[in-house]
């Protein structure tokens, strides 16, 4: 389902400039025209395209950069084709599939843009590239320190950990929904949403409850030369590694330890420990599978409420409000959200009333236009 707010000028464009084919393509176009007739002065109108109309199907392409910098590189494995035998290619393919499945089967979201966008991944990016990233339209993975002698390597290939794949793909989802700017607290929230859904992909693929999960991000990324189990711990931020070469995991798990820095876009990969732990606390209090209740609250908040400049306090208030809407005011679920944020030093404010302000997210609007056949 695509659900977002279209500004009036865009409604004009669809209603007046649409071809017959485009109009015929979706009854939604007619509904938009009707909305316009009935409420010309409305600042915006919510457009909901039924799930059935955006035929859900996984579409994955995995490319290799052949250790160079060009993107996307050479196509190695397209949707439906057999395993390539290249470990990184097949991990990127399977991980993108598991992430698509979480979003579709649990949250009824059809891919990154909500409109079936193809999931493009490139592996073998550059040489000695110990990183993975989202470039605004695709996922990219390096091979770690493969160009160093084994005794000097710190990082393995970045596809080795399925939560890294879920993390990168979720940056795309955030881009098309909440649109959190990548700096300071909104940036740390952006990072945290990626860690949360990355971890949920892993937990669901392993069939683990909140109590069974390790809540580690990037388990397996370090070689045996490093003293650490992964890059981040959502359960206990600051404890994932402690190594003579890499130093100690710098993540805080409480507001009193919030790190003020200009490095890393204001510490987006550092302070994400705080909302990460809040999510862990909430999921643990609720018990069972974390992707069900806690994940649903987080997903709906990201999709409908988060804005580009939402900070930690805002996220706490919004998740609390969403929990009340989904499970009832004063429900155990809503109480768990309040407790989880309190556990990291953030007290939910406000009564958790709905705050239906329009989401002017351009990515969502683009997805609707694309679905309707506009360029």
């Amino acid at each position, binding site marked *: 389902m695509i659900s977002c707010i279209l500004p009036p000028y865009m409604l004009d464009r669809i209603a007046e400039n649409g071809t017959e084919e485009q109009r015929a393509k979706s009854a939604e176009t007619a509904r938009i025209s009707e909305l316009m007739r009935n409420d010309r002065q409305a600042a915006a109108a919510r457009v909901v395209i039924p799930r059935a109309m955006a035929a859900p199907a996984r579409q994955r392409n995995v490319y290799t950069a052949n250790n160079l910098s060009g993107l996307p590189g050479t196509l190695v494995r397209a949707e439906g084709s057999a395993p390539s035998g290249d470990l990184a290619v097949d991990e990127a393919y399977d991980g993108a599939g598991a992430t698509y499945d979480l979003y579709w089967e649990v949250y009824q979201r059809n891919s990154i843009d909500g409109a079936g966008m193809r999931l493009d991944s490139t592996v073998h990016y550059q040489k000695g590239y110990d990183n*993975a990233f989202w470039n605004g339209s695709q996922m990219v993975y390096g091979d770690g320190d493969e160009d160093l002698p084994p005794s000097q390597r710190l990082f393995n290939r970045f596809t080795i950990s399925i939560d890294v794949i879920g993390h990168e793909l979720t940056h795309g989802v955030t881009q098309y929904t909440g649109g959190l700017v990548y700096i300071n607290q909104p940036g740390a929230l952006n990072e945290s949403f990626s860690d949360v859904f990355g971890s949920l992909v892993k937990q669901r693929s392993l069939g683990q409850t909140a109590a069974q999960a390790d809540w580690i991000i990037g388990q397996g990324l370090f070689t045996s030369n490093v003293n650490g189990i992964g890059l981040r711990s959502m359960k206990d931020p600051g404890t994932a590694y402690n190594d003579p070469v890499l130093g100690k995991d710098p993540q805080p798990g409480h507001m009193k330890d919030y790190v003020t820095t200009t490095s890393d876009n204001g510490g987006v990969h550092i302070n994400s420990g705080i909302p990460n732990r809040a999510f862990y606390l909430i999921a643990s209090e609720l018990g069972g599978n974390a992707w069900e209740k806690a994940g649903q609250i987080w997903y709906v908040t990201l999709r409908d409420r988060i804005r580009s400049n939402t900070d930690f306090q805002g996220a706490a208030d919004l998740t609390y409000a969403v929990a009340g809407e989904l499970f009832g005011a004063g429900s155990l679920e809503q109480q768990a959200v309040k407790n989880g944020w309190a556990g990291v030093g953030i007290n939910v404010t406000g009564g958790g009333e709905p705050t239906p302000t329009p989401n002017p997210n351009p990515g969502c609007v683009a997805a609707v236009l694309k679905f309707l056949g506009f360029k």
Partner: protein
Amino acid sequence: MIIRFERSGGFAGMLLRAEIDVQELEPHEREEIHRLVAEAGFFELPPRLQSAGGGADRFQYVLSIEEPGGRSHTLEVSEEAVPPDLQPLIERVAYLARRSRRQSC
């Protein structure tokens, strides 16, 4: 020639920092660095290169190069804004920095 290199950000959010005295490198590595600095037109680059491009988990670099008794220049550049001519130098210096972090320990 002294090269100071700092890489922050990325998925891991870790700082990678190195100071490289190019004269102490093997001759073939030294020559390669001199060639890559020249090919990048490093001393003619502005002090700061940013890109409006979106995305997440990208690196940010600060690269300083000091020639003996000569020019020096510091460049702050986000990964997505690295010009193609500079890319090989960044990759090479990052390699030397990654190599030295285990050796210097």
